[in-house]
């Protein structure tokens, strides 16, 4: 076998003294290339100015650089020489070759121009990866007798798992758009395995979106075109989650985001549940709430594997719509108490108002609420707090949609001047100036809209206030309203389950 499988030795193959502990020759690098095409591209990159800030670590075991590619941000490229005989090349470029052209280019550049490399230390994530690899090799070598390493804190472990999870997701997304055919059997099986492995990554939003993709693959009664469209939307959403997740993990605030918005998202993106003390410190706290439940919902979310119970409340002082929510996992439903439903007004001495967008979550300590007596005045007050201008409501909702990861829904209490039908299918709410919002259902097995029509027959002439959840229908891209309750100063009808 030729000692030079990738071609004859070149003039540049000279061993030059370098800060790196390991001598590298161009020939050695070439032998690492998976194919000629990758080698050619690596050569191009190495001779161009696309490798930015190349550096060597002080201990001489790392080569690190950024690489300008087709991504928005430069790729991170590194070579780990902890095992001098088997360097590990890493890169977050979308290339699916190992090693990829950027990793090879990094080595090649060093082989050709070691002087171009300044001092540069690897980031924490790279160090963590090395540590993990070394530990795995020690376990492999020594078995249970492997030397014990310093224990990491739970928080550090979680961050490491999240970093790994985001990397896996990134690869997964690249693989999805690279290979296409998302809903083919083999692909779905692979996705299922990946979704399971993400279960320990503490990335709830990403895990839920991935599960939604799997559920979409299995959903019946949906056309191929719509399935593809919805699948693409989920993939796009996952991409946005990965980008935000990386930023939050690095402690960065994305440029187009306020701190309050980041606070609202971080729980779902990075699975960091808020503690009461944190919420209080950050000002997400309110005293003296007078609440009145307008609607109560119980839904089963298969992507979250949770039963979600929501008490939709109106703050009778401010008119704000708040949600008291119980998230009850399918596995372990009983230990989590049900979200109570309230048929009379209640006062709460102090409560956390979670960071969020238009509709925010409210939570109080058990027993902090005082349940009042049935009160016609509360109903009258709630009715009076309904918003009368649909255009302003829709505009407020559209403001929320400007954030890429903001929920695609929000609750409003709106006063309908008319409720009627256009043709046989469309049920429409209209305000006094003729602005309209179409009512629509989200479930297939139950119709809140059907109940709205019944309620309108009873209350229509009294200009009822209707608690609606505005949402964007994915395929039609229309802002529509899921009716949840209808009320007048004298009557209160709940419209959904």
């Amino acid at each position, binding site marked *: 076998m030729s000692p030079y499988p990738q071609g004859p030795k070149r003039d540049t193959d000279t061993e030059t003294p370098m800060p790196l502990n390991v001598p590298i020759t161009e020939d050695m690098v070439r032998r690492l290339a998976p194919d000629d095409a990758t080698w050619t591209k690596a050569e191009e990159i190495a001779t161009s100015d696309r490798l930015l800030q190349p550096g060597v670590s002080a201990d001489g075991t790392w080569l690190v650089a950024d690489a300008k590619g087709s991504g928005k941000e430069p790729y991170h490229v590194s070579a780990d020489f902890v095992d001098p005989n088997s360097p590990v090349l890493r890169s977050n470029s979308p290339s699916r070759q190992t090693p990829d052209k950027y990793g090879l280019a990094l080595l090649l550049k060093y082989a050709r121009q070691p002087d171009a490399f300044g001092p540069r230390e690897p980031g924490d994530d790279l160090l963590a990866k090395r540590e993990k690899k070394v530990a795995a090799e020690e376990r492999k070598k020594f078995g249970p007798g492997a030397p014990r390493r310093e224990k990491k804190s739970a928080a550090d472990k979680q961050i490491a798992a999240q970093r790994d999870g985001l990397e896996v997701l990134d690869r997964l997304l690249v693989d999805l758009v690279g290979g296409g055919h998302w809903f083919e059997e083999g692909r779905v099986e692979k996705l299922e395995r990946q979704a399971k492995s993400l279960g320990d990554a503490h990335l709830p939003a990403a895990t839920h979106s991935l599960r939604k993709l799997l559920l979409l693959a299995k959903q019946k009664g949906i056309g191929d075109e719509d399935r593809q469209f919805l699948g693409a939307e989920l993939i796009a*959403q996952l*991409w946005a989650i990965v980008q935000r997740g990386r930023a939050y993990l690095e402690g960065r605030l994305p440029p187009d985001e306020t701190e309050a918005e980041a606070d609202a998202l971080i729980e779902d993106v990075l699975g960091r549940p808020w503690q009461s003390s944190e919420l209080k410190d950050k000002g997400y706290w309110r005293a003296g709430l007078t609440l009145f439940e307008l609607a109560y919902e119980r839904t089963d979310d298969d992507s979250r594997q949770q039963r979600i119970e929501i008490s939709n409340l109106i703050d009778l002082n401010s008119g704000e719509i708040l949600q008291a929510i119980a998230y009850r996992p399918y596995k372990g439903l009983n230990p989590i108490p049900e979200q109570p439903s309230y048929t009379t007004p209640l006062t709460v001495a102090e409560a956390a108002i979670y960071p969020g967008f238009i509709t925010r979550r409210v939570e109080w300590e058990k027993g902090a609420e005082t349940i009042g007596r049935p009160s016609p005045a509360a109903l009258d007050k709630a009715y009076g707090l309904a918003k009368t201008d649909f255009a302003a409501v829709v505009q407020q909702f559209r403001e929320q949609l400007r954030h890429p990861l903001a929920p695609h829904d929000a609750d409003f209490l709106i006063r309908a001047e008319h409720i009627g039908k256009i043709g046989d299918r*469309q049920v429409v709410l209209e305000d006094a100036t003729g602005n309209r919002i179409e009512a629509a259902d989200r479930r297939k097995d139950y*119709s809140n809209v059907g109940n709205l029509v019944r309620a309108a027959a009873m209350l229509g002439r009294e200009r009822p206030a209707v608690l609606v959840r505005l949402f964007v229908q994915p395929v039609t891209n229309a802002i529509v309203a899921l009716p949840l309750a209808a009320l007048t100063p004298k009557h209160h009808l709940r419209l959904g389950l």
Partner: protein
Amino acid sequence: MAKEKDPLLEALIAAAAAGVDAGPATELKGKVATAPSELADAAGRLRAAEDDEAPAPLLELLAGAFHARLQRAEAGVKGNLEVVAEGGHWSTPMSAENLYLLVPETRPFAKKVKPEVQIEAIESATRLGTATDLRLLQIYLKHLEEKKEDAAVADAVAQHAIPAFGPPILPELWPSLGPDNRTFSAASKIDIQATLKRLTEKTPEKKAKGADKQSQVTKAVEKILEDAAEGGRVGPESLPILKLALKYAPEPSFRRKVAETLAGMGAAAAGEALPDLVDAFERTGFTRDYNLIRPMVVLGKESTDVADALIRALEDRDSTVRLMAAFNIGQMGEPAMKGLDTLEDVAERDPEPKVRDTALKTLNKLRARLEPVGVVPVDDASIAETE
């Protein structure tokens, strides 16, 4: 509402769904040249990207294009708004705790609420007046569509929950009304007249389905009788459909069941249903239906119409009809006297000895009422056999 046209997004989705590895993304790169300014940077990088790197800017563009689309989402709908007509009275008084006992589980592999618990919930809610919760109406209506005969919760809904809403609920029931389903049971409990009217109306849909009045009526009555057999009762409110059944029911055994049900209703049925019973007896075909004789007599012992019908039946082609008529005239009251001459004739000339004997016995019985002496002796054994 139709799907919004977005050529850039469609091209991106098509490329991603087919997989950019499948071939050079030349066509896509051409299309992204028209990307709006906020996506121009990513579009430029996609155009410049080598094929192995195309997924990165493609994902970015896809996310950007979806987000841009979301920004264009609009509310509102055009057209003539027809305000919902006034009517109905609804309430939602049931507590969440009880409500969800009756809401079907959607969780996979969830433990379902036991039927007996649901039935108890329905019955107690009916007693407390909370069964008529608007939120449950759709669930009740789905129960009514249950095809299985053995469905205790569906039966409880038909028997208790739906009738508790009263007449305003009837329009909600009409779309699924059939003569032999639970909707019929529920609706007939609320207003049998309206239900029958609706059932026998020939709507265009029914015509299209080829459903005829006869089978509608037959099935409806079978449902009523079935409900009655399961502990219910057939009340005067069912008289109209039973009368219709006499008119349309083709099967003798079914007519007999209807006639016996009417006989069991006693005086309530006598006034209203007797003419129909007589009519059915006389117009059932080539010969009369002897199964209707006994119910006629039970309901119309003093009816001249019944007596006349039986006297005419003494000349029926069917000897069993003649035999039964001859015997039952004897069970009647005063109007039976009109039949003396015909009975005399039958007792002498009927070709069947049993008919002749029975006619003679009835004749003697009737004469005995007038003049207790001079009775002609007859063979008791042959009479007993007739009975």
